[in-house]
Structures are given as C-alpha cells and as structure tokens.
C-alpha cells in the first residue's frame, strides 16, 4: 500500500489546493473524502486517520452544509453520520441519489439494529458502520468502497499465481489444484475480488457468511486458517496475510 504522508485539511476550502498540487506533483491525484459528522472530536480523529493514510478530507458538521459540499466538491467517497443537526444523514444521501450522484457512501450510526441498517442501505447508503467502531474498520470500509470491484463478465479471477474459475468452481495455484469446500470457495472469491485490501472480520462475516450478528467464537479465524492452509502450500510464498487485530489481506507479492 502506497501511503502518502499525512496532510490534514480539516475544514479548509477547496479553492486553494496545495494538496492537489502536491498530489499532482506526486503524479497521483489525492482521493477526496467528505466527512459529515457533528461530533467534532470523532470527526477530528477520523480526519487525522484518513489524512495519515493519504486521503484529502473535507469535514462538515451539519447536513445542509454537507449536502452543499457534496454537490460542489464532488468527493470520491463520503462518510455520513445518520443523526445530524439541520438535515438528517439519510435525507442528505437521498437528495444526492435523486440528483444521480453515485458517490459511494458509508453511513455511520449509533443505531445498530438490523432494521436500521437495512433502512440505511435502502436509502442509498453503500455500507453501514455502527458506532462505536475501530478506526481500522472504518478505513478498511472506505477503501473497499473506493475500490469496489467492477462488474465484469470475466469468468476467471486471477491474483498472482492464484486462479479461480467461477464457472467450473475450481481453484488452482500455479499447476497445483486446490480442493475447496463451497464456503471456502466463496471466501476466496470475495478475497480475490478485493486483493491487496484489508478485509476486516466484520466485513467477511457480513459479506461471505451473511451473518447479521457477531458470534462469540472466532469463526472467521478458523475458516481463514483452513483456507490459508490450502492456498499457501508448504514452501510457497504466503498470499493470505493476517493483519494483527484487524483482519486479512490477500496479496500476490509478499
């Protein structure tokens, strides 16, 4: 992961753009994230973390200003709190979606019930994160939104020596055939579509196991351990990496 060193733009206007200049000089446009969150302390932490990871962050403390910024700044991704002064977060998203703005949105909320989550996603949110959350989780989800796999007609997924045939339901690493159970196949498919991305346990549970609750047992670790055992044979370069306390990454290069 190429990390651009921290540059904070907590609430700076978009007119002057030293950040843009810097990014352009670095031959890479900085990814712009709009954060709409009314709690300044939370916002500050999120902004600092995102900046450290090379994002350019714009912050709005209320819904109306946030909606204006979303229209004028055209951010690459948005993080929107549900309960906001002025205008509710979901209303902001709804308004944007009506204007055909397809910017990916991560909804933050203290409302964790399954019904609330479903509502948040139905109103146009792309992902939903319940407060309190780990910063690692937030970053992983923003990255996932920014690098959503493109709908492709490709029937074979490839990451390094790893090959997954979606029609035949077979997996190969180089010439070695990997024998996978159906759920292991789904897990590997999900990871290969998002190679080089940090996938947290919660994301895997939601997407692969379709769990709406977190079981007490370390389910993901056990299943991942088995998959790793099959994918990374003895003497082979490990491809599935455990990021301590956060989640897993599938990488071609070590």
């Amino acid at each position, binding site marked *: 992961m190429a990390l651009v060193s921290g540059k904070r733009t907590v609430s700076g206007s978009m007119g002057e753009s030293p950040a843009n200049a810097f990014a352009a000089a670095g031959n890479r446009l900085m990814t712009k994230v709009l954060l709409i969150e009314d709690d300044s302390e939370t916002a500050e932490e999120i902004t600092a973390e995102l900046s450290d990871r090379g994002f350019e962050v714009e912050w709005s403390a209320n819904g109306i200003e946030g909606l204006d910024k979303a229209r004028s700044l055209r951010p690459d991704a948005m993080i929107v709190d549900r309960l906001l002064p002025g205008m509710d977060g979901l209303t902001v998203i709804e308004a944007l979606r009506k204007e055909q703005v397809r910017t990916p949105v991560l909804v933050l909320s203290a409302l964790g019930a399954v*019904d609330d989550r479903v509502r948040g996603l139905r109103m146009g949110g792309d992902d939903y994160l319940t407060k309190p959350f780990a910063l690692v989780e937030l970053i992983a989800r923003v990255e996932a939104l920014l690098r959503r796999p493109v709908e492709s007609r490709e029937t074979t997924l490839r990451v390094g020596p790893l090959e997954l045939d979606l029609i035949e339901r077979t997996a190969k690493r180089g010439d070695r055939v990997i024998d996978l159970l159906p759920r292991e196949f789904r897990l590997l498919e999900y990871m290969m579509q998002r190679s080089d991305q940090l996938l947290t346990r919660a994301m895997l549970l939601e997407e692969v196991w379709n769990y709406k609750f*977190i079981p007490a047992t370390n389910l993901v670790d*056990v299943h991942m351990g088995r998959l790793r055992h099959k994918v990374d044979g003895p003497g082979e370069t490990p491809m599935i990496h455990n990021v301590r306390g956060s989640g897993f990454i599938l990488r071609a290069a070590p």
Partner: protein
Amino acid sequence: MRQPQIIRSTTFHWALAVSGVFAVFVIVLFGFIYWQTDDYLIARSDRMIARQLNYITGLPSERRLIAIDEHLAQDSRGVQYAGLFGPDGRKMAGNLERFPPELTMNDFVQSITVVRMLAAGPQSHAIRAIARRLSDGNALVIGREVDETREISHVVGQALALGLLPALCLCLLAGAWLSMRAQKRVEEVNQRVQRIIAGDLRERLPHRNVDEPFSNLAVIVNGMLDEMEAMIHALAGVGNDIAHDLRTPLTRARLTLERGRTNATSLEQLQTVVDKAVANVDQSLAIITALLRLAEIENSRRSAAFGSVPLHEMLGEVGDIYEPIAENKKIDLRVDVRHRLSVRADRDLLFEAVANLVDNAIKFTPEGGKVEIELLRGDRETIVRVADTGSGISEQEREAVLRRFYRSDKIRNTPGVGLGLSLVAAIVKLHGFRLAIHSGAGGRLEIICPDPQPA
C-alpha cells in the same frame, strides 16, 4: 354531582330505552288483546242470535209467539231483543216496537242502533241483529246488545294499562340501581388503578369468585399486572447485572491506563498498556451490542420476516460453519438429519438461535467430546436438538441459564458475555416455539416447533 352522573351513565340510558320498548310492546299487546276479545265476544253473540233465529223459524207458526216471549223472559239482564212483525209491518210479539229501518232482511248479522222506550225515556242501544222473512209472510228479528262485550274488552284493556305503569317504574328503578352499582365498581377500580399508576405495583383490582364479566375482567387485568410486576423486577435485576458486567472490564481498563501512565517508561510498554485497555473497552462494547441485539429481538414482534424455512438445509449449513471450529477443538460434530422438515420462521433469527446453541455446545464440551445436531419429528411438532458430552446443565441451573449474564461457576473462566441462551430464548419465544433444557449428564437443548394449528 352523583345524580346527573347516574342519568348520564350508559346503563341508565339502556334502562330508559328498554322501558320505552317495553311500553310500546305493552300498548301493542293491549290493542291486540282488546281487538281479539272484542272480535271473539261479538262472534259468539252472533252465533247465538243466528241459532235463536233458526230455532224460532223451525217452530210451527202458532208456537213462535210463545217462544219469543219465553226467550225474552229468560233474559234477566235485558240484553236480548226479538220481534215478530206481520207482512204489513204490524208488531205481533217481542220487545221491538217496530221493524228497525236499518235492518235488511238477508239472514246476516248486522250492527244497528235501536231506540228502546224505558221508564226513564227513550234510550238508544247499539245491537247486533238478524232478520228473516218467514214462510207465512211474517218478519222475524232477533238481536243482542253488544255494549256488554265492549265493557268486557274495556276491563281487559284497563287491567293491562294499570300493569304498564308499575312495570315502567320497575324498569327505571332497576336501571338506576344497575348504573349506580356499575358506577361504584368503576370508581373502586379507578382508585386502585390510580394507586398502581402512582407506583404501587402490588395493588390488584377487586374481584369476586363468580363467573361475572366484571370479575372476569378484573382477573384478566390482575394477571397482566402480575406479569408486568415480574417483568419490572426482572428488569431491575438485569439493570444490576448489566452495571456489574460493564463495570468489570471498564474498571480493568481504567486501572491499566492509570498504572501505565505512571509506570510505562517506553513506547512499547505504553502500547501494551493501551492494547490491554482497548481489549477491555471492546469487551464492554460487546456486552452492550449483545444487549441491544437482545432488546431488538424481544421488541421485533411485528417486523419479523416469517417464511418457510427448510430446517434440514439450515442445520446442514450450521454444521458446515462450525465443523472446522469443532475439529480444531478435537470435537466430533455430527449433523443427523433424517427428515426433510420445514417450519414457519424468520430464517436469520432461527439460524442465529441454532448457531448459538451449537457455539455453546462446542464451547462447553471438553476436547475429544461429541456434539450432535439432530432434526427430529415428535408428536405434532418438529424438534431441533443440540446434544453434547459436556458438563450439562443441572436441575438447579435450568432457570438460571436463561437469565441474562448467567455464567455457571463451572465455566467462569471461559470467554463470553453470557447472553447466548437469553438470546436463544428470546428468538424461540418470538416464534411461539419452546426451548427445552434437559438435565443430566451431557448438555441437551431442544427447540420445539409445534405444527401450526389448522385454521
């Protein structure tokens, strides 16, 4: 204030309405009886005069005069009329001075008015009369006064009218009494309810041990109050449990941070301290999340998305997910599904319940043990059984395991927040299923799904 209240009360209004209907009914009845009596009496007297006419007609001419005199002589009340007139209209016998002009000679009984000369002067009488031209050219008239039948009818009517008044009074009195009684009971209930609202949860509504709507209602409400009181006490207990379970990790986090701040001398030491504190904070959050989830399930009575859930497939899936975990612990996890059975349920919730049972079974079964998921068919019910070779749940613990945060002393050191079975119980209750916990060696829990009653 009391009087108008009674008059305004519904019971009283009903009493008034009933009295009104009753009065109308009595008046109609009176009319009917009057009309029937009148009719009957007149018909009877008509038959009598027709018979008399026939009798006299049947006699030889010379006997007729005597028969008429005899007929009139027998009438002590002076209600009979008779007359025999010659072809020229001359009176031959009887108490009629002349042939009544209104009377037609057609053998039919008719209503006419005749004038009778009495000592007090001429008196007109309404009578029923019949006339016939006899074979010898004479005209015979037989009549009978009907004022008498009218009188009898009047007496009957009067009796009914006299009965009506007291009946109406009785109706009104009964209405007022019933309404006052109801008012009193409502007042009594109201006072008790006010005390309950004020916070006295032990107060109950008064009821008598008789099968009467008011008492039955009071019994029902008391049952509801019992349930609520128990729930509120349980809630208070849960509040204490939550406080205790949340305080423990938070206290640890606080101590760790406090000591780390004073004692840590390097960045690594500080990071270790912070990691420990974060783990403790996460533990508190996990408890809150589990509690909120529990509350969500308990309150989701209406939003539950019910559909037909094929249990055989679902259990297989649970087995697939937990198989590696069981294997890691060297536990033999078996799924024994002999039937293809479906129940009406919210699939996600039921999955969560079964997953929780299996999770628990694996957690509390020592290495080398066995966990078995079975799908059975009972007497008009479908049973999901999760059995293990762990320590089991003792008779004394059966109630307690369903309580939030209960953790058996035997498993104090196993990680978890102790909400799993409460969650299962809540889900099972939401579906109208039953959770059976069997005691004895090895754990054996069953989710019993009764077949839906045919509507």
